[in-house]
């Protein structure tokens, strides 16, 4: 009898501790956030830097116990999809997100992909954060897209004005890949340059996106002797080769772009020939980076082996999604609630020093707030690293 009681008691205790153990380590609910973008091919760095930024930040938040939205604590789960910079695949990716019950998607990275997924996003109740600039995505009646970075028609004029005032440039030339993104960036750059009184000496030269030798491409451009050569919409893979070819052809003027670049790629591809190259950066310059930003860079590096400077502009999208959902938990599966929150949303910006805030902007450019506020940081490459040229805010 005593033995039976002992066995019963022991069994009950074992079961009880297993239940308590399970309860203590019960999994948080999952909050799926999607990514649809290019993670292969020459522009892979754009999409991979997005995906890895999200995964690094999600892993960090989950390690801290998850994210509390309303009464529920969630682990963030990133659901990625490689669209290979193909609009048809981008549509398939967005449909996959809808099937998985994802309402918030970062990407796509390029104009045609972002335009292609708009109908799917609007039908399936998805808000997406493209890194594409066409205003039609953000101006009413469109309302489901929120621009994830500074647009070239916002950064271009700021860069040209700065160079007019500080470097005295008068003549400008543009070269672009023969693709919709770079061509539209070139066209808006030309418009901005003319509005500022610059003489556009060359704006017709384009190159195949798979070009590897840019010397024959740049020869006619260099012969027009611009003060500033703009590499419109240049991919991180092509930038160092274009810079190198220009310098080897004897070009002494300034070279700039309005896309994000990677210092290591520039160092390897162009070395000291890339010194002076101007591009758009993000929040991890020494003057701006908070301790949280520095920790993010460390965690990213540990997770993936090396950091990608483009993540400086890509780190924000996931943060905005999570903080906006915290501000209005009803938006967790209802994008209309999210849209209601956009106009008044404000939260501390963890990635910048001081009392910088996360808030939505875009009223000037789009007549509605459909852009996340990220600092416009214009960098100059020098000896393997970026140095801040100037910082501004855009709307």
């Amino acid at each position, binding site marked *: 009898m005593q033995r039976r009681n002992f066995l019963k008691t022991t069994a009950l205790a074992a079961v009880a501790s297993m239940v308590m153990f399970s309860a203590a380590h019960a999994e948080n609910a999952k909050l799926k956030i999607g990514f649809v973008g290019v993670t292969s091919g020459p522009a892979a760095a754009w999409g991979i830097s997005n995906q890895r930024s999200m995964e690094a930040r999600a892993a960090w938040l989950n390690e801290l116990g998850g994210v509390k939205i309303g009464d529920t604590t969630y682990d963030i789960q990133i659901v990625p999809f490689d669209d290979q910079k193909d609009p048809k695949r981008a549509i398939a990716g967005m449909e996959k997100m809808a099937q998985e019950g994802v309402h918030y998607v970062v990407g796509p990275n390029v104009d045609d992909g972002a335009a292609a997924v708009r109908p799917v996003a609007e039908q399936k109740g998805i808000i997406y954060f493209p890194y594409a600039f066409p205003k039609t995505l953000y101006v009413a009646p469109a309302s489901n897209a929120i621009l994830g970075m500074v647009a070239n028609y916002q950064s271009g004029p700021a860069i040209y004005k700065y160079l007019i005032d500080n470097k005295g440039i008068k003549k400008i030339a543009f070269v672009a890949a023969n693709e919709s993104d770079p061509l539209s960036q070139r066209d808006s750059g030309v418009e901005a340059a003319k509005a500022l009184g610059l003489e556009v000496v060359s704006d017709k*030269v384009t190159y195949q996106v798979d070009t*590897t030798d840019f010397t024959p491409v740049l*020869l*006619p451009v260099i012969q027009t002797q611009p003060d500033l050569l703009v590499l419109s919409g240049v991919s991180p*893979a092509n930038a160092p080769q274009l810079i190198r070819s220009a310098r080897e052809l004897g070009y002494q003027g300034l070279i700039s772009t309005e896309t994000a670049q*990677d210092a290591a*790629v520039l160092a*390897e*591809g*162009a070395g000291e020939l890339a010194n002076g190259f101007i591009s758009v950066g993000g929040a991890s310059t020494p003057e701006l980076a908070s301790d949280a930003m520095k920790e993010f860079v460390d965690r990213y590096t540990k997770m993936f082996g090396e950091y990608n400077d483009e993540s400086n502009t890509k780190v924000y999208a996931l943060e905005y999604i999570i903080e906006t959902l915290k501000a209005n938990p009803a938006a967790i599966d209802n994008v209309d609630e999210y849209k209601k929150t956009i106009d008044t949303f404000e939260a501390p910006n963890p990635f910048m020093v001081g009392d910088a805030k996360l808030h939505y902007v875009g009223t000037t450019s789009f007549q509605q707030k459909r852009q996340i506020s990220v600092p416009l940081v214009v960098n100059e490459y020098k000896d393997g690293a970026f140095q801040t040229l100037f910082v501004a805010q855009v709307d």
Partner: protein
Amino acid sequence: MEQIIANGLYLGAQYALIALGLTLIFSLMNVLNFAHGQMYVFGGFVCYTVVSQLGLPFIVGLIASALVLGVMGALIERFLFRPVIRRSKRDESTMLLAAGIAFFLDALILLLFGEKQRGVPKIVNGVFNWDFRLIMPYDRILIGVLAIALILGFILFMQYSKAGRAMRALAQDRTAAQLMGVDVDRYSMLGFAMGAMLAGLVGALLVTITGVNLGMGGPTSVKAFLMIMIGGAGVISGAIAGGFILGMMESVGLSVLSSYGDVTYLVIFATLMAFLAIRPQGLMGKPWG
């Protein structure tokens, strides 16, 4: 004009080296190696790893690329193409296999080497500048000379070595070569290995000029096919001619047609279509059938 010709010759030398590997494989095995561009990219990344990450001299990087791609080519022929050619009665099987290998290598390159553009520092600094009429960086001149030396070395090998004669016999008439005692399996494997090695060598040479990234494979394969279509598939002299012709057309087109927008390759493709309609076997290929 001098600049255009110099650019054309430089491009032509690189392209000819790429085309040689592709045409060698086609001549021996009647296989269009769709993975040729990916092998070029792999060679570039091997050289980058050896030079930029391990800090070894560029010549070591070149040799490493040649060896790695040679071994890869031999293994691909031995364990993939040979069984398929033996068992399948349809030519399309090898084309599908080659396409599959291309996709596989793309994924492998992404896993092994990552997504970023990679480059090797210039091996020679300075620019040759003849009064701004001809501007050519010294490293391009060196790479161009190396490419021409490799082409000459390849021609000499094919002409005067036993293995070269055996491979030429195989390319001419497989059955007759077998009857003459040529080991078909051995020289097919050697030929594929050499073709892959040539692709890897160009990748290694050019990583110091144009860099390398995983997206370059497909377009490089397309250009290689263009060259052998121009020159004649399976003919070594045709591959060299095709490479130089394409290089020259590209250089001339980009300079002369630049004011009309990006129409150079439109013109090249249109010209090629008209040319192939008149002479489908290319400049030096034998008529089919």
